[in-house]
Structures are given as structure tokens and as C-alpha cells.
């Protein structure tokens, strides 16, 4: 039996909300605690990123333990970049022991994007291998090497990610199928801005009969400034930001002289766009909820959840 608040929320067929909680580039636990307070009443579970974009931060395992102690249901994100299969399995055992019940298996960003491009990337396993490893530890009581896992097993609620907006588009649903077969039980997708392409992806996932085998949370993210919109459209591979959204952000600030007021106008427009996207995502068959990634803007989550009528 998997004792996960997130899992129970999803099983209740309610429209679930999860959010991303970025750990600090320091040992200051209060940063995590403040973010926890912010998200506590508004989300079913909170993801903690694992050295996102290969930039060194407080470990995801530690931050999740702090969230757990504050009564939040953490989602422990774990990548294959920094650890080999020995360390990955040992962290799964440790996390479970600390009461963490959700794990998100990712391949992870390449070290050349982070602040240590000289580092040696591990990539002993990829995300699919990791999903299967956690499932076998939980269901078969076996390590990846086949050794017996005697004693308490890590009964984790296993999650994975998928990016419907990166080529080859027709293969993306099939790749999701591989992850489900490996043991993925819930999926948090890349940020959705191109609704049409996401609909096509969900239709193909439906055709493969996966909708009743896995919960899918659509990723969303409010945009702070037109600059950020342009940057994401032009420089972030695998992210599809339609021009209308960039134009709306640019239009929002037009004619406002005062810098602060203009920044506020942009933020409001960013949140409005995010809420509109959430409304449309609600109508797509198979979307069980949203995963709000308000990077370094956790304060926006409550307002988004409220205006989208999710609480």
C-alpha cells in the first residue's frame, strides 16, 4: 500500500495542484520553510528540484524532509546526472525512511548548462532505468543487481516527466508508454503554452490506452516579464512559446511609464495567461491536475490557484 497524500488526492478524481519548490543555493533551511508556508494550504504536494539546470543547490532529499516535517507532502525529484545506480538506490531507501512517499525520476539537465561545466556527468542510468529500479525495489523487493531487498521496501508513488513539445513529436506518447510500462504512475509534463499541440499529445496518449494507467499533471508557469517570454521562446530547447503570448506580455506594459507599475502590470498579465491556460487544460480529457512551476516566484501560486478556482 502506498501511503501518499498526492496519490490519494489523484485517486479522489479532484483536479489536483502541485507546485515546484526550489531549494536555496545555501544551507539556510528557513528559505524552504518560508516557501512551505506559502504553498501549504494551496497545493496537494510540492516538488523539490534536484540541482535544477545542473546548478548546485541544497539537496532535494534534505529539503523534502523539511517539507515533510512541516506537514506538506513532498515530491522527491531525483536525476541520473549526479549519482550512479548505487547512490540512487541508497537515496530511495533513505527518502522512504524519512517519510517521503513520492519520487519523480528524471534524466536531468546536462552539466554543461550549470555552474560546473568541468564536472563529469554520471548518467549511469537514464530516467526509464530509474523508474524501473524504484518499481522493482517496491514491488519485487530486489535491487537493480537482482540482490534481495530484505526488510522494509520503499513503497514509493513513482512519477516521471515528459516533454510533448520536443521532436520527434509522434514518438513522445510512445516514450510515455515506455515509462508507464517501467512503472511510472504519475506524469508532470513540460510547461504548456501551446494548448493545440498539448491536445494532440493527450489524444495520442489516449489512443495508446494510457489514460487509465497513469495520472497526467500538465505543467504551467506564469511569466514575469516580456523578456522572460522572449527568452523561453527563443533559447529554451524543447519549449514551445507561441508568439501571441509574447505579444500579450509586451502589450501589457505599453504606455506605463513608472517602472514598478509596469512590472506589476506584466506580472498580472502573466498570471492571467497562466489561469487561462489552466481553464483550457481542465477541459482536456486525461488531465488530472496541474503542476505550477513558479520559479523563484512561489508567491504567485496562491493567487493562481485561487483565480483558477482550484481551491
Amino acid at each position, binding site marked *: 500500500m502506498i501511503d501518499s497524500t498526492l496519490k490519494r488526492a489523484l485517486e479522489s478524481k479532484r483536479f489536483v495542484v502541485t507546485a515546484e519548490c526550489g531549494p536555496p543555493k545555501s544551507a539556510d533551511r528557513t528559505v524552504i520553510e518560508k516557501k512551505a508556508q506559502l504553498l501549504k494550504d494551496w497545493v496537494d504536494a510540492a516538488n523539490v528540484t534536484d540541482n535544477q539546470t545542473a546548478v548546485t543547490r541544497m539537496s532535494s532529499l534534505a529539503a523534502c524532509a523539511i517539507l515533510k516535517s512541516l506537514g506538506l507532502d513532498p515530491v522527491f525529484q531525483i536525476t*541520473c*546526472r549526479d549519482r550512479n*545506480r548505487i547512490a540512487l538506490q541508497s537515496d530511495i531507501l533513505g527518502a522512504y525512511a524519512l517519510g517521503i512517499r513520492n519520487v519523480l525520476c528524471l*534524466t*536531468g*539537465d*546536462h552539466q*554543461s*548548462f550549470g555552474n560546473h*561545466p568541468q564536472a563529469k*556527468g554520471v*548518467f*549511469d*542510468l*537514464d*530516467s*526509464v*532505468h530509474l523508474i*524501473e*529500479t524504484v518499481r522493482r525495489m517496491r514491488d519485487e523487493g530486489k535491487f*537493480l543487481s537482482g540482490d534481495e531487498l530484505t526488510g522494509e521496501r520503499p513503497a514509493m508513488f513513482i512519477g516521471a*516527466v*515528459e*516533454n510533448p513539445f*520536443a*521532436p*520527434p513529436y509522434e*514518438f513522445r506518447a*510512445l*516514450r510515455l*508508454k*515506455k515509462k508507464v*510500462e*517501467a512503472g511510472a504512475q504519475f506524469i508532470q509534463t*513540460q510547461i504548456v503554452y501551446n494548448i493545440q499541440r498539448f491536445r494532440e499529445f493527450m489524444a495520442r496518449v489516449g489512443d495508446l490506452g494510457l489514460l487509465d494507467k497513469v495520472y497526467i499533471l500538465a505543467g504551467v508557469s506564469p511569466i514575469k516579464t516580456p523578456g522572460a517570454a522572449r527568452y523561453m521562446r527563443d533559447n529554451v*530547447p*524543447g519549449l*514551445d512559446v507561441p508568439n501571441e503570448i509574447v505579444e500579450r506580455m509586451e502589450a501589457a506594459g505599453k504606455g506605463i511609464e513608472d517602472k514598478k507599475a509596469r512590472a506589476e502590470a506584466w506580472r498580472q498579465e502573466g498570471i492571467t495567461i497562466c489561469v487561462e491556460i489552466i481553464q483550457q487544460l481542465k477541459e482536456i480529457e486525461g488531465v488530472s491536475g496541474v503542476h505550477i512551476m513558479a520559479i523563484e516566484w512561489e508567491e504567485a501560486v496562491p493567487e493562481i490557484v485561487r483565480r483558477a478556482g482550484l481551491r
Partner: protein
Amino acid sequence: MIVADQKPIEEILQMLEPYKRVLLLGCQSCVAVCMAGGEKEVGLLASAVRLARTSQGRPIEITEGVVKRQCDDEFNDLWRETIEQQEAVLSLACGVGVNKLSERFDLPILPALNTKFFGEVERQGIWTEVCAGCGNCILHMTGGICPIARCAKNLLNGPCGGVRADGTCEVSRNGPRPCAWVLIYERLGKLNQRKNMEQLFAAKDWSSDRHGGPRRRIREDMLL
């Protein structure tokens, strides 16, 4: 072939700083083909070093030579008597040659090249890494395109989410490269073997790679 690149001239000059009599020894196999360490490059590098040292007012005496292959003692031994008169040898072979000479002769053996990868000739003047020598080939499953050498994260269940709209890999420190798994996807499509990509590739046994420790290959029947 083994593909190598010449070190920047400043770095080479620095290495040669303490020496006045040096042998530049090239190699006629892989590094000649990839235009890094053949007889021509030995001539050019020797001339460049002499010019630099002359303009610094500290002339250097350079002997130029080249061997068929620097990974065999017998070839290197042909230059024993000249080597013994030098203060150092600057080898223009791949790293293997530098090691071989260092094991054989007790004077400093300096690497003029940065040895890089097993490569194909994409076209004249461009060499591309396509094999990582992992010791356990799966090319029959991936339509002949190697994800270990050509995917930045050597994924076995690619592609990851970091593929640009034009099909190139997000990791482009060494210039834009097509995503290996997109290539495999298209290739398997042509060969009607796309099924291979749909089933799960098991985790790789890295012990056949250098992760299992430096490797040797032994043909018992050929031992003398």
C-alpha cells in the same frame, strides 16, 4: 581513426621552455590522416617553434622525424640513437605514442597533440566522434548510430526533452550536433525497425568500458 588536435602553439612553446635540443617525432598513421601529426605537420611545427624561439632570442635546435606508427617499440627504436642525443622529445603522435615512448626512453616525452576521439571524416577538414569504445556494441539495435558516443547523456531510452525544434541537441558546446536519438528514430523508420525504440533498453553494463578499469585485449594464440 584516432582523431587528435594540435595543442595551441603557446602551450607547446611553454612546454619546450627548458630545452635547447629537441626531437619532433611525428606518426604516419591516424594523426597523419587527420592532419595533426604527420610529416607535414612536423615540418610546420618545427619551423614555427624555431621562428618563435629565434624571435625571443633563445634559439632552439630541432631535429624532425616521423615513424610509421608510434604505438610499436620497433618503429620508435629506429630513432633511439637520435633520441638519446636530445634533451626532450615532442611527440606528434596520439597519447598512445607519448606513453609508448615514455615507457621506452628515460627523457621527457612531451605531447604536442590533444588526443580526442574515434572519428569519421564528415567531409574534408571535419572529423566527428561516432564511437566511444565502450566495449559492448549495440549498434545492431540502433540502426548503426551509437547513442553512447553521440548522445551527450549516453541515453539508452532517448531522446530526452532537450531537443531543439530543428532536431539538434541542446548541448552544443562543441557546435550544433543532431540529436543521436532523433537520427536513430529516422534511421530505424527507414529500416522498418522502429519497434526497437519502443521496447525498453536495459541499463548498460559499464564494466566493459574503461569504468571497469583500464583494459587489455589478449589473443592467446598470438602470444610468443
